[in-house]
């Protein structure tokens, strides 16, 4: 693994607390994911790709903004790997970089109408930007 990939892997593992070695590759996370079809990389791939050091691909994928954070994979993983935490970690690693906010306050009017609850806006901003 080259140095940057190694650094990114270590960061993802450290901040997520996930140990991908516990994965037995059963695919239950991707079997239970409600937003599977919208995602380019699927929950089981997050686990496998982080283990293989392929984090940059994940960071650049839209998939990190399509995880619903519903924690179904976290709850149902039979090995306690909890893939959703890895998705969160990779997403944060992406947006914590300079100028890498996915969306900001100025984007809100484009998306939000008056029925959107505050909770949604707050949640989205927490997910999309530093």
């Amino acid at each position: 693994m080259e140095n940057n990939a190694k650094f990114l892997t270590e960061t993802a593992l450290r901040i997520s607390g996930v140990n991908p070695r516990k994965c037995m590759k059963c695919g239950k996370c991707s079997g239970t994911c409600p937003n599977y079809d919208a995602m380019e990389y699927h929950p089981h791939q997050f686990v496998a790709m982080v283990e293989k050091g392929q984090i940059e691909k994940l960071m650049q994928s839209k998939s990190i903004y399509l995880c619903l954070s519903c924690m179904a994979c976290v709850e149902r993983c039979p090995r306690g790997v909890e893939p959703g935490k890895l998705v969160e970690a990779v997403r944060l690693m992406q947006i914590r970089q300079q100028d890498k906010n996915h969306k900001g306050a100025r984007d809100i009017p484009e998306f939000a109408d008056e029925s959107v609850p505050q909770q949604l806006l707050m949640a989205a901003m927490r997910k999309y930007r530093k």
Partner: protein
Amino acid sequence: MQKIGVFVCWCGSNIAATVDVEAVAEAVKNEPGVVFSANYQYMCSAAGQKLIQDAIHEHHLTGIVVCSCSPRMHEATFRKTAESAGLNPYMVEIANIREQCSWIHKDKEEATAKAIVLAKAAISKLRNDTPLQAGTSAVTKRCLVIGGGIAGIQTALDVADAGYEVDIVEQRPTIGGRMAQLDKTFPTLDCAACILTPKMVEASQNEKINIISYAKVEKVSGFVGSFKATIRKKARFVDETKCTGCSLCTTKCPSRKGKNEFNMNLDNRGAIYIPFAQAIPNVAVIDPEQCIKLKTGKCGLCEKVCSAGAINYKQEDELIEREYGAIVVATGFKPIDPSPLNEFGYADNADVVTSLEFERLMNAAGPTKGTLLRPSDGKHPKTIVFIQCVGSRCEENTKRGKPYCSKICCMYTAKHAMLVREKYPDTDVHVFYIDVRTPGKNFDEFYRRAAEQYGVDYIKGMVGKVAKEGDKLMVQGSDLINNEQVHIAADMVVLATAIEPDPTARSIGTMLTASMDTNDFFTEAHPKLRPVESPTAGIFLSGVAQGPKDIPETVAQAGAAASKVIGLLAKDHLVTNPCVAQSNELMCNGCSQCEKVCPYGAITYVEKEVRGPGVREVRRVAQVNPAVCQGCGACTVTCPSGAMDLKGFSNKQILAEVDAICRW
């Protein structure tokens, strides 16, 4: 003064790689009493044993210390070595420098220092050793088998075949166990009943075998060769000697609310019932929870129709006390309840069934008479999804099931899939699997046949959600090979549920002081070399009680357990452990503490005249029955006046060891 020889074993590199064995031999050379020390590559080998024997002769040794592996491994070996060289076998001490030293340390210098200390402790103990003589105890030539499934039946048949009496105690009203509930068996697809029921009949007709059904073992005392068991035979409310098994009563019984346990509760039975047509004993039983007569005093229909006059509403539980030389645990298993894993929808949908329920739905004697029909609406399922590893292979902290592989599910699922495709070729069958595990004779060929010849669709992935929609079950799962999420509209979903020990196993284990693992499977005395014996002498293991197994393995293990039982019962006497407690009557103050803590009932109190320097009086003192004492030492640490001592492990000997270690 003793003449002690010290023998340091390398155990190949097991010890020698971490402990400087030469330094150990050198360091103890000048310990008081030591006249000889040596090291050798494998002390337990013939050459190593000869080295010991030669030294005993040459140096007229009075005792030996072997620095080697755990005494559990080779203490008996070296005692025999010493005995054949003319030494008393109890003048042998083992310093465990493998499990307690080389295997758990990395630093050679520190490990060597520790090994020297352990050797010195053993030498100090040996200086206080005295020769001991083993006694004998008689063997009761009867065997108790707990559990009457295929494991218990096979063990009983084999033990009886050798001429010994066997009692099978079965908790259900009939023997036969789980195998009786199965439809076909892998990998040959012969019908389970066709191969099991002849064995059940054989057991019932064997003069040496006594089947005690609808019963449980309530209490066990004693020790190897001489156990005493109390068995509670529950009231059937039917006289076994009179009932002919005509089953007329079962058809007339007006109570139909009792769940039919034999059919995995998929249909109901009468309050009076015979579990299945080939039940043994073929005798009816009344479920007191369901019987109208027993609950309200009214009805009595079964009594009226019984021409044999076998019904007895006043029957009571019967207690049977009997002695046994050996006890076999064959308590078997049950499938786990998959309700908590409700992403699979078992709790909410009648058409999501466990594999054992599916066996009953496929069985000619089952609730659907062998026609595969959905429990919800009695329709033929056209699409069936099988899900493997439900509740197996789960990390313990997730609380989503068992940490182990249940071992039999891959094969029975292949069997189910194949049987469905054979019987109903228009039915689509999908199997979600994580791995397909088929290590067994003709097993992988069987699985491949299911996929290749029968067109079973094997999907590498796991199901994440089963949801009812209309009259379909929408199965959402991953297909990892295609990297896609699949959605299958199924008519039926079959969960290959993990298996777990029968719920009675834990209490039986406690009763027998037989050790169990964290999953409540019985532990074997050695995982490789003594797989059918419990570490508790005289207790043997048969079938799934020890760990997940299929039928051929169970039968093989049941036979192995029987051969161990036969080996034990063939002896008239057992050599008893001479390391038993003894009471110093002069010091005993008659407090009874030791009697209370003794788990074997080996201590009694007597009034007797005690004589000693300046003492001559009649006192109440403890006496140990050496035939019953197992040398556990509970009394010696309980005794407030230091009157109890354990031969071979006296307070003096143990303190000598402690002193040696503290001098380090």
